[in-house]
């Protein structure tokens, strides 16, 4: 999922960095005081999730958890996931610092899209309906991320369809697992503390 240094054309790297900077600026603007602890927790869970490997055939893929971050944080997922990616690059060598912008966009933009697609279903239904929407959102975020990774590779000269297909099919198990995890997390939150979502909206800063 993380694209490494040297795999992309310079234009893609620069474009990704510009988009990521914009997203982070917008995300910080939409990060009220009340949401900062949640952003930290989700950033940490994203950071650790990448260490959970799901073995698939000869290779393995890891969890990403960007859908859950998007559902709870919205645009604030950009800075939260950026911090997670930065630390992954520094500590684990996942991805790299030059492609940090591209990776941030590839992972945080689907989170924001999921926020807009699924937010209404998650906040305005019974716990079961919320869980189904959250599961859908968790899987959708991974699917969109694979599409963006394929797109980044295509813009750098790879043929889009085989590259995207490869990444997409490798991540189907991750989509299933993340869908279930997101659904379980949101179901729990909706059952135990249904005011969580209202409380976290906070005052726009």
């Amino acid at each position, binding site marked *: 999922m993380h694209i490494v240094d040297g795999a992309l054309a310079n234009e893609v790297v620069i474009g990704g960095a510009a988009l990521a900077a914009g997203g982070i600026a917008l995300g910080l603007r939409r990060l009220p005081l009340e949401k900062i602890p949640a952003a930290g927790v989700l950033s940490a869970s994203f950071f*650790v999730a990448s260490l959970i490997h799901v073995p698939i055939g000869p290779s393995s893929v890891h969890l990403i958890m960007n859908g859950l971050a998007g559902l709870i944080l919205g645009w604030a997922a950009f800075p939260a996931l950026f*911090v997670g990616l930065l630390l992954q690059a520094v500590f684990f*060598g996942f991805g790299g610092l030059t492609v940090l912008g591209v990776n941030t966009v590839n992972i945080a933009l689907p989170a924001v899209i999921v926020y807009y697609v699924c937010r209404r279903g998650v906040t305005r239904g019974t716990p079961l309906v919320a869980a189904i929407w959250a599961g859908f959102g968790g899987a959708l975020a991974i699917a969109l991320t694979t599409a963006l990774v394929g797109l980044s*590779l295509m813009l750098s000269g790879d043929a889009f369809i085989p590259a995207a297909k490869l990444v997409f099919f490798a991540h189907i198990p991750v989509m299933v697992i993340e869908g279930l995890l997101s659904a379980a997390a949101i179901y729990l939150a909706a059952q135990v503390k249904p005011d969580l979502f209202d409380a976290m909206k906070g005052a726009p800063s």
Partner: protein
Amino acid sequence: MIRALSIILCLTLAPLPAAAHKVIASAFPSGDAIEGEVGFSSGDMAANLLVEVFDGAGTKLGEAMTDADGFFTYVPTQPVRHIFRADLGAGHVAEFEMAAEEVAAILGNPATGAAPAPTEPAATAPLAGLSDADRAAIAAIMRDEMRPLRREVAAYREHHDIQTVLGGIGYIAGLFGLGFYFAARRRLAG
């Protein structure tokens, strides 16, 4: 202010080269050839992969295929810097190189195995009775013995222990705590 800080942070960090990769690859002299391996840090090796060889100026010198264990051999013809590049797909690219001196050393002693050209006389004395074929066989055995060690060292270097993970979580807690502090201070002041 936090916004400006984080933008500055991301801009200043961007041009730095990454210290580590999730793709591991290396090349080393092996008799009269260059041997190398390509794989992922998880221990999965890249089987049947095309490795392209370039010189320092970017001219393509040739190519090699990896075997089922991710190993490849390439016989150099010119004593120049060799750059190896392999595309593992899905955004994983390995690029590694061998310096001109090392390649020259390989070309300089095609038959005496992996030892560098200026060998100590004392070291070669016990080997004096050996034919070139024996030496090549010993060198091959040595390489076979070293291979699992080298892989283990590479895997160990990519290993993430609990301290690293906790350290990362600590950074996240600190960063967001700092953000919380600034945001709270701004709200109290305003």
